[in-house]
């Protein structure tokens, strides 16, 4: 951490440099906050019922009445994009929550206790890393059946290994530090040392990765939605919406284009927040 020295009379006070938040992080927070608002209060933004068919207004180009145009059922694309925020943010949360909790726990335990525990989980982690993430997830979804719930299960089965690897490495580093030796000398139990002392310090990279992972989770969820393995129509989900419009790309490109743009923007938002957090939390 950089610091500046200020002379106050005879005493020298070391003052921490003020934390500066990068403008890109503020942009990221803005994007994510907007998406969150849309997810929680869609009716504040939506101009129409997202699932209502209107055969009098099909395939209309963007206009004052329909900002993002309408699809082949006359549904308002803008309102569907707004309601899609709820599904896609839910995907961001549920594809990462279990992997984060389970992965960090396993990482801390294997890093601290090592031996057979480390050997077993190390092998599993190696194997999972060999598979392309997407292939393994869709293979599991294929067996369980398409749908959001099964997608969450599939991603959870696979996704924890990345967190486990991060936290394991960090725990091994922390284990050798003085404060841990001190805690051991005090006679604290191993569980207490791991969870009260090491864990809060070792979890930082995993928290940073969590943000990036949410952006990856949204991308993955939308990709599975596009392939027909994730959220099922008529649910408003951005990937499904891009797929819905794919046969109208030359005649009504707005059906696919707008959900895709919003999807990309929210992905950028999460990764900017992740990068910003990394700068703040990781001392250079």
């Amino acid at each position, binding site marked *: 951490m950089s610091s500046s020295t200020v002379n106050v009379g005879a005493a020298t006070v070391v003052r921490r440099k003020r934390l500066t938040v990068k403008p890109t992080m503020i942009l990221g927070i803005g994007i994510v906050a907007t998406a969150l608002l849309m997810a929680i209060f869609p009716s504040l933004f939506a101009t129409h019922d997202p699932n209502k068919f209107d055969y009098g207004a099909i395939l209309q180009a963007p206009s004052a009445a329909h900002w993002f145009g309408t699809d082949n059922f006359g549904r308002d694309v803008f309102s569907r994009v707004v309601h899609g925020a709820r599904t896609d943010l839910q995907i961001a949360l549920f594809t990462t929550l279990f992997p984060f909790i389970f992965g960090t726990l396993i990482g801390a335990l294997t890093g601290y206790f090592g031996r057979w525990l480390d050997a077993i989980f190390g*092998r599993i982690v190696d194997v999972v890393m060999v*598979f392309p993430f997407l292939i393994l997830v869709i293979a599991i979804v*294929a*067996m369980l059946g398409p749908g959001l719930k099964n997608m969450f299960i599939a991603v959870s089965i696979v996704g924890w290994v990345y967190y486990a690897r991060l936290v394991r490495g960090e725990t091994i580093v922390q284990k050798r530090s003085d404060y841990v030796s001190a805690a051991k000398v005090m006679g604290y139990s191993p569980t207490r040392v791991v969870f009260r002392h090491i864990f809060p310090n070792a979890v930082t990279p995993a928290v940073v990765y969590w943000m990036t992972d949410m952006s990856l989770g949204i991308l993955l969820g*939308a*990709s599975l939605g596009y392939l027909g393995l994730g959220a099922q129509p008529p649910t408003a989900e951005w990937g499904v919406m891009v797929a819905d419009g*794919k046969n109208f790309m030359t005649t009504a490109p707005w059906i696919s284009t707008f959900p*895709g743009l919003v*999807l990309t923007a929210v992905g*950028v938002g999460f990764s900017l927040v992740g990068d910003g957090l990394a700068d703040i939390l990781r001392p250079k």
Partner: protein
Amino acid sequence: MNRWAYLLARILQMIPTLVVIMILVFALVRLLPGNPAVAILGDRVTDEAVARVNQELGLDKPLPMQFWIFFNRVIRGDLGESINLKMAVTRLIGDRLPITLFLTAYAGLLAAVMAIPMAVLSALKRGTWIDNLIRAVFQIGLSLPVFYVSLQLLTVFGAQLRWFPVGGIGPTPASNFYFLFLPALSLGFYMAAILMRSLRASILEVLTSDYVSFARAKGIRPRLVLTRHVLRNAMISTVTLFGLSIGQLMGGAVITETVFAIPGVGRLMVDAIFGRDYAVVQGLTLAFAVVIMVIFLLTDLAYTVLDPRTKVA
């Protein structure tokens, strides 16, 4: 230990991982509700057929025994038969894998062509608007879904401008550089974004190192310092990342092949899932893992060639 011994050791190390992979793939079909034989054969099957498959796969025997039977079949190259395509899964994979490998390699090539010059420019012009612009474009590239880029490229350059075909593969292998350009580009852009970030960071790190200052002080021309000293060293970490991301690239091929109707293993996987062709899903999952393991091995070897410090004495 020379390089050959190292290679042999690395190959031997792959064996236990391969066994665990086979256990995983074996377990995959057991996730299916109901009798795996019925799942493998489809819903409309006769009792005799089920009995025959039960016998073949040893489904009436305990699990370890079932795995042993599965293991022996896989070793002999028997991955079962596709119920929809009425073909041996091994042959199907043999027919289609080259297309996916070509697409992946092509995408990797395009990614390198996009990422390397941009990373060099971005690092040399650090902090300027050029640097910021390049980083912004690649930042967006990281969040652009592959299916979305594919669909947009297909519409604009395929359907509207008619510069490229709207799907499928070419009649000859060489013509695929043209036929698969758009799919490779959409797949490669994502990878370029990952590579650019890493390479830029490595170049910045190498630029401040002692040996670069020394090379400059010796009066070596700046261009030579850049290519011979900076790039070569900065590439080392990027080559590893490149090898690791090839796996993700192959995963992405599932999506690109679906959008562009390319008859590779990725599309085969999606078709197999919707056709409930579980022997194919199982066989492909295994094939993907094996291909990736080989790529990891090659990456390792490339690493030892590039970085003299890792040369085993």
